[in-house]
């Protein structure tokens, strides 16, 4: 009896690339996060800062339009909306606080539950591989980071440009846009990897929040104490968030030559080391399949 005669058939459907499945995973992950009220509250908090900046840029544009002579005066008072790379860097850095809080609580929903409740088997039994799954999850976390940092910063940049008389600001400051995108990409990549690694191992929210707090609150405090006690600023390099900011300032092109360039080299090395450690922690979790529950 041939295979065809018992109902089996060859597979000839037109399907999308498995890489596109990563997008579905990211989108679904983000939707799952946004179903919870807590995240809307945190998003609202992040939006408050954004709206404040948005209003300030508008106010500055209005004041400057009414009386161009006071523009410098306004710039001196409203230092956070000068339209320079530093103002966007500071904005994104500040947004990071809420982002961190959001990520600490989102870890279980986005990644932890797949390991805790066996959801990983649903993914791995489909046409996608572990790479596609990992990319989807990283993309989901990255989108959450971008939602509160990069996207608002880009909107503020466009607003600032649109509020001027011509498009000169946008044309002349394309480097700032690159800086926003670069800093945003660095934050999204590093935070995605670290959160994925922690959530894959710790699975539940409470230990995840504790580990997250240790990494982004305790370690910076320790770094400051050690740098004071030892009188050595190199200890500040254990502050991952500060290292990311240093890389961000490099993206915006606001780095002085000399000592600061060397510092950025060290910061980049530490960030890379953290990324490599995260990847090394993720791989065995993706390989291991829990066989006996």
């Amino acid at each position: 009896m041939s295979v065809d005669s018992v109902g089996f058939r060859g597979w000839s459907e037109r399907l999308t690339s498995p890489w596109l499945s990563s997008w579905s995973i990211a989108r679904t992950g983000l939707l799952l996060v946004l179903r919870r009220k807590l995240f809307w509250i945190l998003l609202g908090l992040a939006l408050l800062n954004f709206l404040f900046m948005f209003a300030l840029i508008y106010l500055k544009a209005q004041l400057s339009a009414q009386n161009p002579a006071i523009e410098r005066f306004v710039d001196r008072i409203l230092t956070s909306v000068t339209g320079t790379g530093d103002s966007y860097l500071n904005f994104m850095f500040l947004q990071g606080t809420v982002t961190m809080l959001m990520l600490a609580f989102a870890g279980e929903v986005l990644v932890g539950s797949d390991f805790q409740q066996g959801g990983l088997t649903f993914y791995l039994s489909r046409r996608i591989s572990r790479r596609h799954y990992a990319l989807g999850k990283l993309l989901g976390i990255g989108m959450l980071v971008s939602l509160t940092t990069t996207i608002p910063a880009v909107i503020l940049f466009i607003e600032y440009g649109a509020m001027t008389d011509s498009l000169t600001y946008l044309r002349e400051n394309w480097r700032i846009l690159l800086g926003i995108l670069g800093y945003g990409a660095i934050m999204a990549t590093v935070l995605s990897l670290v959160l994925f690694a922690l959530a894959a191992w710790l699975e539940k929210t409470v230990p995840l929040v504790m580990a997250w707090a240790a990494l982004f609150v305790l370690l910076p405090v320790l770094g400051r104490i050690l740098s004071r006690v030892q009188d050595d600023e190199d200890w500040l390099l254990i502050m991952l968030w500060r290292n990311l900011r240093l890389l961000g300032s490099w993206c915006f092109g606001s780095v002085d030559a000399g000592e600061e360039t060397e510092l950025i080299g060290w910061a980049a090395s530490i960030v890379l080391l953290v990324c490599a450690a995260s990847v090394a922690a993720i791989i065995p979790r993706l390989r291991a399949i829990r066989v006996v529950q």
Partner: protein
Amino acid sequence: MSETPSLCRFRRVSKWYGAVIALNDVSFALRPGITGLVGPNGAGKSTLIKLLTGQLRPSLGEVRVQDVSAWSAAARSYIGYCPDADAFYEEMSGRAFVRFMARLRGYRRNDAHERSEAALQQVEMTDRADRKLGSYSKGMRQRIKLAQAIVHDPDVVVLDEPLNGVDPVGRAQLVRVFRQLADAGKAILISSHILDEMDTLADQVMFICRGRMLASGTLEEIREMLEDHPLKVRINAKSPRELAGQMLRLNAVRGVQLEPPQSLLLEVERPGEFFPELARLAAKEDYEIEKLEVVDASTEAVFDYLLRQAGQ
């Protein structure tokens, strides 16, 4: 059954986890119909299923689905998997979950929509699919899991403990869906440690213990292979003593035990020879046989014998 081609094949497959051997030199072929995978906890059922669904690679041997390695993504097109985990994405609706799984299969948005609706209809969940997964009963969750497994119309459906914790009504509905799928020419592999289920559900049974395949085939075939354990047959008749005398004359009958007032328990060595003889006798003499039951040919009894043999 043996003439139908196999869709999945295990060839001398072994799997180790470090120094622990989870599956030891297992070979079998999966054919259309319902196949039960039976074994105690830790027997290797989950490992076998994960090898079949391409989630694990064998340490030795090969697992092939159609003509491709089960590890490859292409093989997963032919397999639908329903894991035993059912605490997943509580906030998501059943419909969204099935659609999401269809998207992961590679279907475009419209195709995914059509496929998921068809799958939900097949498991009779269309009207309740918009509720959150967290609000579903155990049986409804099982049906949603089944829907995601069959959303791409696979040829092989692998179900890990699908009837676990499901109430009798839900169980009957699920069994009906399994039977429909089997009748449509699909190979259904059902893993279970509830042996009673397999008596009526499975066309074939695979018994597995300590990583080894103890036996596979239909229950009758396996029962007949157990020569050390004669088949126990209970007969209720109006005149049991006369019938017992006749039975002792048959070569296939090893022993007879009277169970007053009207029963006798026979130990039968060659069922294939015994039953036609019994039928002939019953037709010839008027023994008024009221009831005839095979006492130890259930999945549980066969498994018990197999385990005892394996222990020796």
